[in-house]
């Protein structure tokens, strides 16, 4: 019967699959019309095969305790679904993705203030006045420094500044 795979072996298989996909693309890199000792495809091929070899070594390596992520404790699991540790990572990621998509139409100041205030509130900060003042203050300071002093353009969006 096949033994259950350990963490390193699962990671090794994922990395091996990635390196095979990488090599497939590397073998499709077109060659330069003039003959050269080494072309654009050599280095990627070397990298792909090296990674594949390293995946093999990782498969054989016994995982250390520090390589295995902790499972969430009962305290974390007792929290509402939206406040559990992994939910925080997922919701923060979704918020960043939404921010990236909305920053240009809505504008840097509004989008950043909403993101900073909203996430601090979601992470558990309950002094809303301080939160709002800090978020607006820092975002405005950044905006004015970037646009007025450094001449870096940031989207204005719905605000006329």
């Amino acid at each position: 019967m096949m033994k259950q795979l350990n963490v390193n072996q699962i990671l090794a298989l994922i990395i091996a699959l990635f390196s095979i996909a990488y090599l497939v693309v590397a073998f499709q890199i077109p060659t330069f019309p003039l003959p050269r000792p080494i072309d654009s495809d050599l280095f990627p091929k070397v990298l792909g095969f090296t990674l594949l070899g390293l995946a093999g070594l990782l498969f054989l390596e016994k995982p250390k305790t520090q390589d295995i992520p902790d499972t969430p404790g009962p305290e974390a699991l007792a929290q509402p679904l939206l406040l559990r540790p992994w939910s925080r990572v997922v919701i923060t990621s979704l918020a960043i993705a939404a921010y990236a998509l909305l920053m240009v139409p809505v504008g840097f100041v509004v989008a950043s203030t909403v993101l900073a205030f909203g996430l601090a509130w979601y992470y558990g900060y309950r002094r809303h006045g301080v939160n709002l003042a800090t978020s607006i203050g820092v975002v405005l300071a950044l905006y004015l420094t970037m646009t007025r002093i450094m001449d870096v353009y940031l989207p204005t969006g719905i605000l006329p500044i």
Partner: protein
Amino acid sequence: MEAFNNLMFGFGIALEPMNIAYVFGGVFAGTIIGMLPGLGPISALALMIPVTFAMEPSSGLILMAGVYYGAIFGGSSSSILLNAPGVAGTVATSFDGYPMAKQGMAGKALAIAAYASFIGGTISIVFLMMVAPLLSRVAVAFGPTEYFALMVLGLTAVVSLSDKSLVKGLIAAVVGVMISIIGIDLQTGTVRFAFGTTHLLDGIDFLVVALGIFALAEVFYILLRGGGGKEQPRNAIGSLKLTRKEAGEIAGPIGRSSVLGFFTGVLPGAGATIGSFLGYSMEKRIAKDGDTFGKGNIKGVAAPEAANNAACTGSFVPLLTLGVPGSGTTAVLLGALLVMGITPGPAMLADRPDVFWGVIASMYIGNIMLLVLNLPLIPYIAKILEMPRPLLLSLILIFCMVGVYGMSFSVIDLLFLLGFGLLGLGMRLFGFPAAPLILALILGDIMEESMRRALQISGGDWMVFIDKPISMWLLIIASLSLILPVVKPLLQKLRARG
């Protein structure tokens, strides 16, 4: 004596009231900009180029030198306080600086960084002045073969210094190189791994990866450990004062790393990043308490800080005497010089001694300013740690976004930032070190270019890397740095068995 006279001539220029003001302004602006994760010396210098248009070339370069030093030190502050190095040269500082901050010794870590930067900078300036002509001859002797071997050594040193798995460190390094070669191959014009999108033609910027792997992954990790929901006990900043014993402990590492950093900085392509990693690696290896590196060892802060500042100075040697930038940052400086109508090279010393010696003298003054300005400001800089954790986490996210968007003006880069943040979290959870990835990312394309140029010169003969003595020795040391961590425990086991 000639060097002394030249230096006095340089001081005459650097001590002009306007030039002192420029050094002060440059150091101050550089420190603030360098502190913001994402805005490192390259961005700061690039933004300063328009400011220098109307200046005398010597004044312009003096201002730029101040910004450069300030940004490197500012980057150390965010590395220590937030584990968010905005500058590659200060990544190694975060290895022990951040654990020190978490143990309530942020003030001490920042003070060590300031002292080490000052001493590293000062020692290397003396070196620069005394041996610049000799060193430039050594740097000239480095061809693509030697560069390639040097990069390999830099990478293996970083992989071997990690206390995590050697295989995982190498995997991280290979992935870093893979990221670095995305986009147009500048030698042939061939597009690689862009998957038909125009956005990837220029590759993925270092900043996007660095902020993702370090800062964003740190935020995610804190959230995963439940740090976002509750008020965390605040880390005390602690005293800025060092005991006599601590000063004695860091004196050796600072001295050694200053020399090492300077020589690394002189070699084009190496710069502050490799210098700081090599300094850290060297001290970890020779320290009796090497096992405490990465857990808040003061020598682990002093060594990379002295080395990166010394390397910054060292990188001026090839720039000023050969016209070859020693790092990405000095490449921006080279651009600034060309804009001012100065072509650096061997003739510069004779044609524009005011620029050459003015800059060297302003480095002395810039270093003193850095210490005078930053030490009193440390408690205020460290106040950032006293912010409620939820607020701090959300603001770090905003700083990351501004850093990335302000550089590329691309929404897609913000999504890449998120992707690298999640990758960084995964790496952290499964024991993959992040430092080799980031260093490989910086060195990857230069490494490939050096390798290809070397092979083109040799007509495709791979023995060229062994035939040249410098390259051969560098590669032997690189191999040993990988083999020793594997062989050492085996030998210990054999000895234990008798």
